[in-house]
Protein backbone atom coordinates (compact mmCIF):
# COMPACT_ATOMS: atom_id res chain seq x y z
CA UNK A 1 0.00 0.00 0.00
CA UNK A 2 1.15 3.46 -0.76
CA UNK A 3 2.46 5.83 1.82
CA UNK A 4 -0.29 8.32 2.38
CA UNK A 5 1.98 10.78 4.10
CA UNK A 6 5.60 10.06 3.39
CA UNK A 7 7.90 10.95 6.20
CA UNK A 8 10.16 13.77 5.23
CA UNK A 9 13.51 12.61 3.97
CA UNK A 10 16.29 13.38 6.31
CA UNK A 11 18.61 15.28 4.07
CA UNK A 12 21.51 15.45 6.37
CA UNK A 13 24.80 14.27 4.99
CA UNK A 14 25.99 11.57 7.28
CA UNK A 15 27.71 8.36 6.75
CA UNK A 16 25.40 5.76 5.31
CA UNK A 17 26.16 3.38 8.14
CA UNK A 18 25.20 5.76 10.89
CA UNK A 19 22.00 6.63 9.08
CA UNK A 20 21.10 3.02 8.70
CA UNK A 21 21.81 2.35 12.37
CA UNK A 22 19.61 5.25 13.34
CA UNK A 23 16.83 4.01 11.12
CA UNK A 24 17.20 0.62 12.66
CA UNK A 25 16.84 1.94 16.20
CA UNK A 26 13.93 4.13 15.20
CA UNK A 27 12.17 1.15 13.68
CA UNK A 28 12.53 -0.78 16.92
CA UNK A 29 11.05 2.12 18.85
CA UNK A 30 8.28 2.38 16.29
CA UNK A 31 7.34 -1.27 16.71
CA UNK A 32 7.33 -0.89 20.48
CA UNK A 33 4.98 2.07 20.20
CA UNK A 34 2.76 0.31 17.72
CA UNK A 35 2.85 -2.93 19.71
CA UNK A 36 -0.63 -2.62 21.25
CA UNK A 37 -2.17 -2.12 17.82
CA UNK A 38 -0.14 -4.88 16.18
CA UNK A 39 -0.86 -7.37 18.96
CA UNK A 40 -4.52 -6.38 18.94
CA UNK A 41 -4.66 -7.09 15.23
CA UNK A 42 -3.00 -10.46 15.70
CA UNK A 43 -4.97 -11.53 18.77
CA UNK A 44 -8.43 -10.13 18.34
CA UNK A 45 -9.29 -8.70 14.96
CA UNK A 46 -7.47 -10.31 12.05
CA UNK A 47 -8.45 -13.85 13.01
CA UNK A 48 -12.19 -13.18 13.07
CA UNK A 49 -11.87 -11.15 9.85
CA UNK A 50 -10.16 -13.99 8.03
CA UNK A 51 -12.65 -16.43 9.51
CA UNK A 52 -15.58 -14.38 8.24
CA UNK A 53 -13.93 -14.25 4.82
CA UNK A 54 -13.63 -18.02 4.72
CA UNK A 55 -17.17 -18.41 6.01
CA UNK A 56 -18.40 -16.36 3.06
CA UNK A 57 -17.60 -19.40 0.92
CA UNK A 58 -19.64 -21.74 3.06
CA UNK A 59 -23.15 -22.65 3.94
CA UNK A 60 -23.16 -21.72 7.62
CA UNK A 61 -26.07 -21.21 10.01
CA UNK A 62 -24.03 -20.64 13.22
CA UNK A 63 -25.80 -23.65 14.76
CA UNK A 64 -23.89 -26.39 13.03
CA UNK A 65 -20.52 -26.69 11.33
CA UNK A 66 -20.07 -24.79 8.07
CA UNK A 67 -20.13 -26.61 4.74
CA UNK A 68 -18.00 -25.41 1.84
CA UNK A 69 -20.11 -24.18 -1.04
CA UNK A 70 -17.64 -22.26 -3.14
CA UNK A 71 -18.89 -19.10 -4.80
CA UNK A 72 -22.56 -19.94 -4.32
CA UNK A 73 -23.15 -17.12 -1.82
CA UNK A 74 -21.59 -14.54 -4.12
CA UNK A 75 -23.49 -15.88 -7.07
CA UNK A 76 -26.76 -15.63 -5.17
CA UNK A 77 -25.94 -12.16 -3.93
CA UNK A 78 -25.51 -10.65 -7.37
CA UNK A 79 -28.84 -12.12 -8.40
CA UNK A 80 -30.73 -10.94 -5.34
CA UNK A 81 -32.82 -7.89 -6.02
CA UNK A 82 -32.92 -6.98 -2.35
CA UNK A 83 -29.13 -6.87 -2.24
CA UNK A 84 -29.11 -4.27 -5.01
CA UNK A 85 -31.93 -2.39 -3.35
CA UNK A 86 -30.00 -2.26 -0.07
CA UNK A 87 -26.89 -1.16 -1.91
CA UNK A 88 -28.86 1.69 -3.49
CA UNK A 89 -30.27 2.72 -0.12
CA UNK A 90 -26.88 2.71 1.57
CA UNK A 91 -25.26 4.59 -1.29
CA UNK A 92 -27.96 7.26 -1.42
CA UNK A 93 -27.81 7.70 2.31
CA UNK A 94 -24.01 8.01 2.33
CA UNK A 95 -23.80 10.40 -0.59
CA UNK A 96 -26.21 12.79 1.09
CA UNK A 97 -25.54 12.34 4.77
CA UNK A 98 -21.74 12.40 4.78
CA UNK A 99 -21.20 15.84 3.19
CA UNK A 100 -24.25 17.24 4.94
CA UNK A 101 -23.03 15.94 8.27
CA UNK A 102 -19.56 17.37 7.73
CA UNK A 103 -20.89 20.81 6.86
CA UNK A 104 -23.32 20.95 9.77
CA UNK A 105 -20.73 19.61 12.22
CA UNK A 106 -18.13 22.11 11.08
CA UNK A 107 -20.63 24.96 11.19
CA UNK A 108 -21.62 24.06 14.72
CA UNK A 109 -18.01 23.64 15.78
CA UNK A 110 -17.18 27.09 14.45
CA UNK A 111 -20.09 28.61 16.35
CA UNK A 112 -19.23 26.70 19.48
CA UNK A 113 -15.59 27.75 19.23
CA UNK A 114 -16.68 31.29 19.84
CA UNK A 115 -15.29 32.69 23.06
CA UNK A 116 -18.17 33.85 25.19
CA UNK A 117 -20.04 33.16 28.37
CA UNK A 118 -22.42 30.21 28.28
CA UNK A 119 -20.57 28.44 25.50
CA UNK A 120 -20.08 25.48 27.82
CA UNK A 121 -23.83 25.16 28.09
CA UNK A 122 -24.30 25.23 24.33
CA UNK A 123 -21.59 22.67 23.73
CA UNK A 124 -23.27 20.33 26.16
CA UNK A 125 -26.66 20.83 24.54
CA UNK A 126 -25.37 19.97 21.09
CA UNK A 127 -23.46 17.00 22.34
CA UNK A 128 -26.42 15.74 24.35
CA UNK A 129 -28.09 13.72 21.55
CA UNK A 130 -25.05 11.47 21.16
CA UNK A 131 -25.11 10.65 24.84
CA UNK A 132 -28.52 9.02 24.84
CA UNK A 133 -28.61 5.28 24.32
CA UNK A 134 -30.18 3.51 21.36
CA UNK A 135 -33.16 2.28 23.34
CA UNK A 136 -34.47 5.77 23.95
CA UNK A 137 -33.52 7.22 20.60
CA UNK A 138 -35.95 5.12 18.58
CA UNK A 139 -38.87 6.27 20.73
CA UNK A 140 -37.82 9.88 20.39
CA UNK A 141 -37.57 9.72 16.64
CA UNK A 142 -40.85 7.99 16.06
CA UNK A 143 -42.44 10.70 18.10
CA UNK A 144 -40.58 13.51 16.34
CA UNK A 145 -41.53 12.26 12.89
CA UNK A 146 -45.13 11.46 13.69
CA UNK A 147 -47.32 12.72 10.86
CA UNK A 148 -49.76 14.54 13.13
CA UNK A 149 -48.19 15.29 16.48
CA UNK A 150 -44.54 15.15 15.53
CA UNK A 151 -42.73 18.36 16.29
CA UNK A 152 -41.23 18.42 12.81
CA UNK A 153 -44.61 18.57 11.13
CA UNK A 154 -45.91 21.03 13.69
CA UNK A 155 -43.03 23.34 12.78
CA UNK A 156 -43.66 22.79 9.08
CA UNK A 157 -47.32 23.62 9.57
CA UNK A 158 -46.18 26.82 11.22
CA UNK A 159 -44.66 27.89 7.91
CA UNK A 160 -47.63 26.64 5.93
CA UNK A 161 -46.21 23.33 4.72
CA UNK A 162 -48.09 20.07 5.17
CA UNK A 163 -45.40 17.59 6.15
CA UNK A 164 -45.45 13.98 4.98
CA UNK A 165 -45.99 11.05 7.30
CA UNK A 166 -42.28 10.57 7.33
CA UNK A 167 -41.57 7.05 8.51
CA UNK A 168 -44.51 5.51 6.67
CA UNK A 169 -43.80 7.13 3.35
CA UNK A 170 -41.56 5.36 0.87
CA UNK A 171 -40.13 8.61 -0.45
CA UNK A 172 -39.61 10.34 2.86
CA UNK A 173 -38.49 7.59 5.20
CA UNK A 174 -34.89 7.76 4.00
CA UNK A 175 -34.95 11.54 4.17
CA UNK A 176 -36.18 11.22 7.75
CA UNK A 177 -33.24 8.97 8.61
CA UNK A 178 -30.82 11.44 7.04
CA UNK A 179 -32.30 14.21 9.16
CA UNK A 180 -32.06 11.92 12.17
CA UNK A 181 -28.37 11.40 11.42
CA UNK A 182 -27.84 15.14 11.69
CA UNK A 183 -29.16 15.09 15.22
CA UNK A 184 -26.27 12.82 16.14
CA UNK A 185 -23.67 15.05 14.57
CA UNK A 186 -22.26 15.91 18.00
CA UNK A 187 -19.37 13.46 17.74
CA UNK A 188 -18.06 14.83 14.46
CA UNK A 189 -18.57 18.33 15.82
CA UNK A 190 -16.48 17.52 18.87
CA UNK A 191 -13.59 16.33 16.71
CA UNK A 192 -13.76 19.50 14.64
CA UNK A 193 -13.80 21.50 17.84
CA UNK A 194 -10.69 19.70 19.06
CA UNK A 195 -9.09 20.51 15.70
CA UNK A 196 -10.00 24.16 15.97
CA UNK A 197 -8.29 24.33 19.36
CA UNK A 198 -5.01 23.51 17.67
CA UNK A 199 -4.93 26.52 15.36
CA UNK A 200 -2.40 29.04 16.69
CA UNK A 201 -4.15 32.33 17.39
CA UNK A 202 -1.16 34.22 15.96
CA UNK A 203 -2.16 33.19 12.46
CA UNK A 204 -5.43 35.07 12.75
CA UNK A 205 -3.72 38.06 14.32
CA UNK A 206 -1.25 38.20 11.45
CA UNK A 207 -4.05 37.89 8.91
CA UNK A 208 -5.95 40.67 10.62
CA UNK A 209 -2.94 42.92 10.30
CA UNK A 210 -2.69 42.01 6.63
CA UNK A 211 -6.29 43.11 6.30
CA UNK A 212 -7.77 39.71 5.47
CA UNK A 213 -11.55 39.50 5.93
CA UNK A 214 -13.36 36.82 7.89
CA UNK A 215 -14.14 34.69 4.86
CA UNK A 216 -10.55 34.93 3.67
CA UNK A 217 -9.35 33.94 7.14
CA UNK A 218 -11.72 30.99 7.11
CA UNK A 219 -10.61 29.69 3.72
CA UNK A 220 -6.89 30.41 4.09
CA UNK A 221 -6.33 29.62 7.74
CA UNK A 222 -9.18 27.68 9.33
CA UNK A 223 -9.87 25.19 6.55
CA UNK A 224 -6.26 24.22 5.86
CA UNK A 225 -5.40 24.11 9.54
CA UNK A 226 -8.19 21.67 10.30
CA UNK A 227 -7.87 19.68 7.09
CA UNK A 228 -6.30 16.82 9.06
CA UNK A 229 -9.49 16.42 11.10
CA UNK A 230 -11.69 16.97 8.07
CA UNK A 231 -9.78 14.12 6.50
CA UNK A 232 -10.42 11.94 9.54
CA UNK A 233 -14.09 12.85 9.67
CA UNK A 234 -14.51 12.19 5.97
CA UNK A 235 -12.88 8.77 6.06
CA UNK A 236 -14.74 7.69 9.18
CA UNK A 237 -17.93 9.31 7.89
CA UNK A 238 -17.85 7.19 4.75
CA UNK A 239 -17.01 4.05 6.69
CA UNK A 240 -19.74 4.78 9.22
CA UNK A 241 -22.44 5.81 6.76
CA UNK A 242 -22.08 2.68 4.68
CA UNK A 243 -22.46 0.57 7.79
CA UNK A 244 -25.18 2.52 9.56
CA UNK A 245 -27.40 0.04 11.34
CA UNK A 246 -29.10 1.02 14.55
CA UNK A 247 -31.15 3.90 13.17
CA UNK A 248 -32.65 1.89 10.34
CA UNK A 249 -33.09 -1.20 12.46
CA UNK A 250 -34.84 0.41 15.38
CA UNK A 251 -36.65 3.36 13.76
CA UNK A 252 -38.01 1.97 10.49
CA UNK A 253 -37.04 -1.71 10.53
CA UNK A 254 -35.98 -1.35 6.89
CA UNK A 255 -39.45 -0.32 5.67
CA UNK A 256 -41.69 0.85 4.25
CA UNK A 257 -41.40 -1.45 1.26
CA UNK A 258 -37.63 -1.76 1.80
CA UNK A 259 -37.16 1.99 1.32
CA UNK A 260 -34.72 2.07 4.24
CA UNK A 261 -33.26 -1.39 3.84
CA UNK A 262 -29.62 -0.54 4.51
CA UNK A 263 -26.96 -3.07 3.56
CA UNK A 264 -26.16 -3.59 7.22
CA UNK A 265 -29.80 -4.32 8.06
CA UNK A 266 -30.02 -6.71 5.13
CA UNK A 267 -26.94 -8.58 6.22
CA UNK A 268 -27.94 -8.62 9.88
CA UNK A 269 -31.21 -10.27 8.95
CA UNK A 270 -29.46 -12.94 7.01
CA UNK A 271 -26.86 -13.48 9.71
CA UNK A 272 -29.11 -13.68 12.75
CA UNK A 273 -32.68 -14.07 11.59
CA UNK A 274 -32.61 -16.17 8.44
CA UNK A 275 -29.76 -18.42 9.60
CA UNK A 276 -27.74 -17.59 6.46
CA UNK A 277 -24.56 -16.50 8.14
CA UNK A 278 -22.35 -17.57 5.25
CA UNK A 279 -24.40 -15.45 2.88
CA UNK A 280 -24.27 -12.51 5.29
CA UNK A 281 -20.49 -12.83 5.36
CA UNK A 282 -20.41 -12.62 1.56
CA UNK A 283 -22.52 -9.46 1.65
CA UNK A 284 -20.22 -8.03 4.31
CA UNK A 285 -17.12 -8.69 2.23
CA UNK A 286 -18.61 -7.04 -0.82
CA UNK A 287 -19.41 -4.05 1.37
CA UNK A 288 -15.88 -4.22 2.75
CA UNK A 289 -14.37 -3.98 -0.72
CA UNK A 290 -16.55 -0.99 -1.56
CA UNK A 291 -15.60 0.82 1.63
CA UNK A 292 -11.94 -0.04 1.13
CA UNK A 293 -11.95 1.32 -2.41
CA UNK A 294 -13.56 4.57 -1.29
CA UNK A 295 -11.16 4.94 1.63
CA UNK A 296 -8.15 4.43 -0.61
CA UNK A 297 -9.57 7.03 -2.96
CA UNK A 298 -9.81 9.54 -0.14
CA UNK A 299 -6.29 8.68 1.01
CA UNK A 300 -4.92 9.09 -2.51
CA UNK A 301 -6.53 12.49 -2.80
CA UNK A 302 -5.31 13.68 0.56
CA UNK A 303 -1.98 15.22 -0.51
CA UNK A 304 -4.05 17.65 -2.60
CA UNK A 305 -6.00 19.04 0.29
CA UNK A 306 -4.74 17.83 3.64
CA UNK A 307 -2.13 19.93 5.30
CA UNK A 308 0.06 18.81 8.17
CA UNK A 309 2.05 21.27 10.19
CA UNK A 310 4.92 18.82 10.47
CA UNK A 311 5.15 18.54 6.70
CA UNK A 312 5.41 22.18 5.95
CA UNK A 313 7.63 22.36 2.87
CA UNK A 314 11.17 23.42 3.46
CA UNK A 315 10.88 22.45 7.06
CA UNK A 316 13.75 20.02 7.11
Amino acid sequence: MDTPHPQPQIAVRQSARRASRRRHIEAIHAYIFMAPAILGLLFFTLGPMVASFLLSFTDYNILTDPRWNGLANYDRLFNDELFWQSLRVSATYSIVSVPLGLVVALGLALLLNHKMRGILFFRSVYYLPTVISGVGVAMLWRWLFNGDYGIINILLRGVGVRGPNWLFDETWALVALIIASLWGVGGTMLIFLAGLQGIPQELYEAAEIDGAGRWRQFTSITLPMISHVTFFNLVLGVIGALQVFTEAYVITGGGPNNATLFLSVYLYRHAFQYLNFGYAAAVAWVLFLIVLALTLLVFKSSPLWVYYESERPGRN
Partner: protein
Amino acid sequence: MRVHTAPHVFWRTRRGQARLASLAVVIILLAGSVLVLIPFFWMISTSLKQASQVYLAPPIWFPNPPQWGNYVQAVTRVPFHLYAWNTTIIVGLVTIGTLLSCSLSAYGFARLSAPGKNTIFMLLLSTLMLPGAVTLVPTYLLFNALGWVGSFLPLIVPAYFGSAFFIFLMRQFYLTIPRELEEAATIDGASVYQIWWSIMMPLSYPVLATVVVFTFVGTYNDFFTPLIYLTDESKRTIAVALSYFQGSPRIGPQMHLLMAAVTISIVPPLILFVLAQRYFVRGIVMTGIKG
Protein backbone atom coordinates in the same frame (compact mmCIF):
# COMPACT_ATOMS: atom_id res chain seq x y z
CA MET B 1 -20.52 59.71 27.91
CA ARG B 2 -18.54 58.55 25.01
CA VAL B 3 -20.16 55.20 24.59
CA HIS B 4 -23.52 56.83 24.82
CA THR B 5 -22.95 59.41 22.19
CA ALA B 6 -22.06 57.15 19.36
CA PRO B 7 -24.31 54.10 19.23
CA HIS B 8 -24.27 54.17 15.45
CA VAL B 9 -20.53 53.99 15.42
CA PHE B 10 -20.35 51.35 18.10
CA TRP B 11 -20.87 48.42 15.75
CA ARG B 12 -17.98 49.60 13.61
CA THR B 13 -15.55 49.37 16.46
CA ARG B 14 -13.71 46.17 16.96
CA ARG B 15 -15.40 45.56 20.29
CA GLY B 16 -18.72 46.37 18.81
CA GLN B 17 -18.24 43.94 15.98
CA ALA B 18 -17.22 41.24 18.40
CA ARG B 19 -20.33 41.92 20.48
CA LEU B 20 -22.52 41.83 17.43
CA ALA B 21 -20.97 38.60 16.25
CA SER B 22 -21.49 37.10 19.68
CA LEU B 23 -25.11 38.13 19.61
CA ALA B 24 -25.64 36.49 16.22
CA VAL B 25 -23.93 33.33 17.45
CA VAL B 26 -26.10 33.22 20.55
CA ILE B 27 -29.27 33.63 18.54
CA ILE B 28 -28.36 30.85 16.11
CA LEU B 29 -27.24 28.56 18.89
CA LEU B 30 -30.36 29.24 20.92
CA ALA B 31 -32.63 28.44 17.99
CA GLY B 32 -30.74 25.20 17.36
CA SER B 33 -30.81 24.31 21.04
CA VAL B 34 -34.57 24.50 21.09
CA LEU B 35 -34.71 21.98 18.23
CA VAL B 36 -32.24 19.71 19.97
CA LEU B 37 -33.88 19.96 23.37
CA ILE B 38 -37.54 19.46 22.47
CA PRO B 39 -37.21 15.66 22.29
CA PHE B 40 -35.52 15.70 25.67
CA PHE B 41 -38.30 17.77 27.05
CA TRP B 42 -40.78 15.21 25.79
CA MET B 43 -38.68 12.44 27.33
CA ILE B 44 -38.61 14.09 30.74
CA SER B 45 -42.27 15.01 30.52
CA THR B 46 -43.17 11.39 29.76
CA SER B 47 -40.97 10.16 32.58
CA LEU B 48 -43.09 12.18 35.01
CA LYS B 49 -46.47 10.94 33.83
CA GLN B 50 -48.83 8.38 35.24
CA ALA B 51 -49.20 5.32 33.06
CA SER B 52 -52.66 6.44 31.93
CA GLN B 53 -51.47 9.93 30.96
CA VAL B 54 -48.97 8.50 28.51
CA TYR B 55 -51.90 7.61 26.28
CA LEU B 56 -53.61 10.97 26.19
CA ALA B 57 -53.94 12.87 22.95
CA PRO B 58 -53.07 15.64 22.53
CA PRO B 59 -50.15 14.99 24.84
CA ILE B 60 -49.84 16.57 28.27
CA TRP B 61 -46.65 18.58 28.45
CA PHE B 62 -46.62 19.32 32.13
CA PRO B 63 -47.91 16.34 34.08
CA ASN B 64 -49.51 17.48 37.31
CA PRO B 65 -48.59 16.28 39.81
CA PRO B 66 -45.28 15.05 38.41
CA GLN B 67 -44.74 11.37 39.23
CA TRP B 68 -41.30 11.42 40.78
CA GLY B 69 -42.08 7.92 41.93
CA ASN B 70 -41.35 6.70 38.40
CA TYR B 71 -37.70 7.45 39.01
CA VAL B 72 -37.75 5.58 42.29
CA GLN B 73 -39.37 2.63 40.53
CA ALA B 74 -36.92 2.67 37.64
CA VAL B 75 -34.02 2.57 40.07
CA THR B 76 -35.46 0.06 42.51
CA ARG B 77 -36.85 -2.43 39.99
CA VAL B 78 -33.27 -3.51 39.40
CA PRO B 79 -30.22 -3.58 41.67
CA PHE B 80 -29.15 -0.24 40.30
CA HIS B 81 -26.17 0.35 42.60
CA LEU B 82 -24.68 -2.99 41.56
CA TYR B 83 -25.11 -2.16 37.87
CA ALA B 84 -23.63 1.29 38.44
CA TRP B 85 -20.60 -0.33 40.04
CA ASN B 86 -20.17 -2.81 37.17
CA THR B 87 -20.49 0.05 34.70
CA THR B 88 -17.89 2.07 36.56
CA ILE B 89 -15.39 -0.79 36.48
CA ILE B 90 -15.89 -1.58 32.82
CA VAL B 91 -16.04 2.00 31.58
CA GLY B 92 -13.09 3.02 33.77
CA LEU B 93 -10.81 0.20 32.68
CA VAL B 94 -11.79 0.53 29.02
CA THR B 95 -11.14 4.27 29.04
CA ILE B 96 -7.71 3.89 30.63
CA GLY B 97 -6.81 1.08 28.26
CA THR B 98 -7.93 2.97 25.19
CA LEU B 99 -6.08 6.14 26.15
CA LEU B 100 -2.82 4.31 26.82
CA SER B 101 -2.82 1.87 23.93
CA CYS B 102 -4.10 4.32 21.34
CA SER B 103 -1.87 7.24 22.23
CA LEU B 104 1.18 4.96 22.20
CA SER B 105 0.30 3.36 18.89
CA ALA B 106 -0.73 6.64 17.33
CA TYR B 107 2.63 8.16 18.16
CA GLY B 108 4.38 5.28 16.46
CA PHE B 109 2.23 5.67 13.37
CA ALA B 110 2.53 9.46 13.27
CA ARG B 111 6.15 10.04 14.01
CA LEU B 112 8.45 7.07 13.74
CA SER B 113 9.34 5.24 10.60
CA ALA B 114 9.58 1.51 10.29
CA PRO B 115 9.26 -0.89 7.40
CA GLY B 116 5.67 -1.98 6.81
CA LYS B 117 4.25 0.77 8.94
CA ASN B 118 1.79 1.99 6.35
CA THR B 119 0.62 -1.49 5.54
CA ILE B 120 -0.05 -2.10 9.20
CA PHE B 121 -1.91 1.19 9.38
CA MET B 122 -4.18 0.36 6.45
CA LEU B 123 -4.72 -3.09 7.90
CA LEU B 124 -5.74 -1.46 11.14
CA LEU B 125 -8.08 0.90 9.37
CA SER B 126 -9.60 -1.96 7.41
CA THR B 127 -10.83 -3.53 10.64
CA LEU B 128 -13.33 -0.67 10.77
CA MET B 129 -14.67 -1.47 7.33
CA LEU B 130 -16.09 -4.92 7.94
CA PRO B 131 -19.53 -4.86 9.57
CA GLY B 132 -19.36 -6.02 13.16
CA ALA B 133 -22.24 -8.43 12.65
CA VAL B 134 -20.07 -10.86 10.70
CA THR B 135 -17.03 -10.74 12.96
CA LEU B 136 -19.24 -11.20 16.01
CA VAL B 137 -19.59 -14.94 15.57
CA PRO B 138 -15.88 -15.78 15.09
CA THR B 139 -14.99 -13.35 17.88
CA TYR B 140 -17.49 -15.01 20.20
CA LEU B 141 -16.07 -18.42 19.38
CA LEU B 142 -12.57 -17.06 20.08
CA PHE B 143 -13.50 -15.66 23.48
CA ASN B 144 -15.42 -18.81 24.23
CA ALA B 145 -12.35 -20.88 23.46
CA LEU B 146 -10.33 -18.64 25.77
CA GLY B 147 -12.92 -19.27 28.48
CA TRP B 148 -13.72 -15.58 28.73
CA VAL B 149 -17.45 -15.74 28.06
CA GLY B 150 -19.34 -14.83 31.21
CA SER B 151 -16.62 -12.49 32.49
CA PHE B 152 -15.79 -8.84 31.91
CA LEU B 153 -12.67 -9.80 29.95
CA PRO B 154 -14.19 -9.69 26.43
CA LEU B 155 -15.40 -6.19 27.19
CA ILE B 156 -12.19 -4.83 28.72
CA VAL B 157 -9.12 -6.58 27.36
CA PRO B 158 -9.45 -5.54 23.70
CA ALA B 159 -9.34 -1.90 24.79
CA TYR B 160 -5.72 -2.43 25.84
CA PHE B 161 -4.83 -3.45 22.31
CA GLY B 162 -5.76 -0.31 20.52
CA SER B 163 -8.79 0.77 18.58
CA ALA B 164 -8.38 1.72 14.95
CA PHE B 165 -10.75 4.64 15.29
CA PHE B 166 -8.88 6.34 18.11
CA ILE B 167 -5.42 5.51 16.79
CA PHE B 168 -6.34 7.17 13.52
CA LEU B 169 -7.83 10.15 15.33
CA MET B 170 -4.79 10.70 17.54
CA ARG B 171 -2.41 10.14 14.66
CA GLN B 172 -4.11 12.97 12.82
CA PHE B 173 -3.50 15.29 15.75
CA TYR B 174 0.08 14.22 16.35
CA LEU B 175 0.82 14.92 12.70
CA THR B 176 -0.02 18.58 13.24
CA ILE B 177 2.37 19.12 16.11
CA PRO B 178 5.52 20.90 14.95
CA ARG B 179 8.58 18.69 14.81
CA GLU B 180 10.85 21.37 16.25
CA LEU B 181 9.65 20.56 19.72
CA GLU B 182 10.79 16.96 19.47
CA GLU B 183 14.03 17.93 17.76
CA ALA B 184 14.82 20.34 20.56
CA ALA B 185 14.00 17.68 23.15
CA THR B 186 16.16 15.12 21.36
CA ILE B 187 19.10 17.48 21.47
CA ASP B 188 18.44 17.85 25.19
CA GLY B 189 18.81 14.08 25.42
CA ALA B 190 15.17 13.05 25.80
CA SER B 191 14.20 9.56 24.65
CA VAL B 192 11.25 8.96 22.34
CA TYR B 193 9.28 7.71 25.31
CA GLN B 194 9.94 10.91 27.26
CA ILE B 195 8.98 12.93 24.20
CA TRP B 196 5.74 11.01 23.89
CA TRP B 197 4.89 11.38 27.54
CA SER B 198 6.03 14.91 28.27
CA ILE B 199 5.53 16.65 24.94
CA MET B 200 2.96 14.88 22.82
CA MET B 201 0.53 13.96 25.57
CA PRO B 202 0.27 17.42 27.16
CA LEU B 203 0.02 19.03 23.74
CA SER B 204 -2.94 16.91 22.77
CA TYR B 205 -5.31 17.59 25.65
CA PRO B 206 -8.24 18.44 23.37
CA VAL B 207 -7.96 15.19 21.47
CA LEU B 208 -7.35 13.18 24.63
CA ALA B 209 -10.48 14.71 26.10
CA THR B 210 -12.32 13.76 22.92
CA VAL B 211 -11.11 10.19 23.18
CA VAL B 212 -12.14 9.98 26.83
CA VAL B 213 -15.61 11.32 26.07
CA PHE B 214 -16.10 9.02 23.08
CA THR B 215 -14.83 5.93 24.86
CA PHE B 216 -16.87 6.67 27.92
CA VAL B 217 -20.09 7.29 26.03
CA GLY B 218 -19.56 4.37 23.66
CA THR B 219 -18.78 1.86 26.39
CA TYR B 220 -21.39 3.23 28.73
CA ASN B 221 -24.17 2.94 26.16
CA ASP B 222 -23.15 -0.41 24.72
CA PHE B 223 -25.71 -2.97 25.73
CA PHE B 224 -25.18 -5.41 22.88
CA THR B 225 -21.68 -6.65 23.79
CA PRO B 226 -22.47 -7.21 27.48
CA LEU B 227 -25.68 -9.00 26.56
CA ILE B 228 -23.79 -11.33 24.27
CA TYR B 229 -20.86 -12.05 26.57
CA LEU B 230 -22.21 -11.76 30.09
CA THR B 231 -24.47 -14.40 31.51
CA ASP B 232 -24.79 -13.55 35.17
CA GLU B 233 -27.45 -11.06 36.13
CA SER B 234 -25.15 -9.65 38.80
CA LYS B 235 -22.71 -8.59 36.09
CA ARG B 236 -25.10 -6.38 34.15
CA THR B 237 -24.39 -2.77 33.35
CA ILE B 238 -26.69 0.25 33.31
CA ALA B 239 -27.16 0.11 29.54
CA VAL B 240 -28.09 -3.56 29.78
CA ALA B 241 -30.59 -2.82 32.53
CA LEU B 242 -32.10 -0.13 30.31
CA SER B 243 -32.63 -2.58 27.49
CA TYR B 244 -34.88 -4.60 29.81
CA PHE B 245 -37.31 -1.70 30.05
CA GLN B 246 -38.19 -2.12 26.36
CA GLY B 247 -40.71 -4.88 26.81
CA SER B 248 -40.89 -7.42 24.00
CA PRO B 249 -42.19 -7.28 20.43
CA ARG B 250 -45.68 -8.03 21.69
CA ILE B 251 -45.75 -6.52 25.12
CA GLY B 252 -44.51 -3.00 24.67
CA PRO B 253 -42.59 -0.88 27.13
CA GLN B 254 -44.06 0.92 30.08
CA MET B 255 -43.13 4.17 28.47
CA HIS B 256 -43.08 6.31 31.61
CA LEU B 257 -40.68 3.94 33.38
CA LEU B 258 -38.52 3.52 30.29
CA MET B 259 -38.19 7.27 29.89
CA ALA B 260 -37.40 7.72 33.57
CA ALA B 261 -34.66 5.12 33.23
CA VAL B 262 -33.31 6.73 30.06
CA THR B 263 -33.29 10.14 31.71
CA ILE B 264 -31.31 8.86 34.67
CA SER B 265 -28.90 7.09 32.37
CA ILE B 266 -27.86 10.19 30.45
CA VAL B 267 -26.69 12.02 33.58
CA PRO B 268 -23.25 10.39 34.06
CA PRO B 269 -22.01 10.87 30.46
CA LEU B 270 -23.29 14.42 30.54
CA ILE B 271 -21.37 15.18 33.72
CA LEU B 272 -18.27 13.66 32.20
CA PHE B 273 -18.69 15.79 29.11
CA VAL B 274 -18.94 18.98 31.17
CA LEU B 275 -15.85 18.00 33.16
CA ALA B 276 -13.91 17.09 30.01
CA GLN B 277 -14.45 20.57 28.64
CA ARG B 278 -11.79 21.91 30.99
CA TYR B 279 -9.27 20.13 28.82
CA PHE B 280 -10.77 21.53 25.71
CA VAL B 281 -8.51 24.51 25.73
CA ARG B 282 -5.85 25.36 23.28
CA GLY B 283 -2.54 23.67 24.03
CA ILE B 284 -1.17 24.74 27.36
CA VAL B 285 2.37 24.03 26.29
CA MET B 286 1.81 25.68 22.96
CA THR B 287 1.67 29.12 24.50
CA GLY B 288 4.71 28.22 26.53
CA ILE B 289 6.87 27.64 23.46
CA LYS B 290 6.34 31.06 22.10
CA GLY B 291 8.33 32.83 24.75
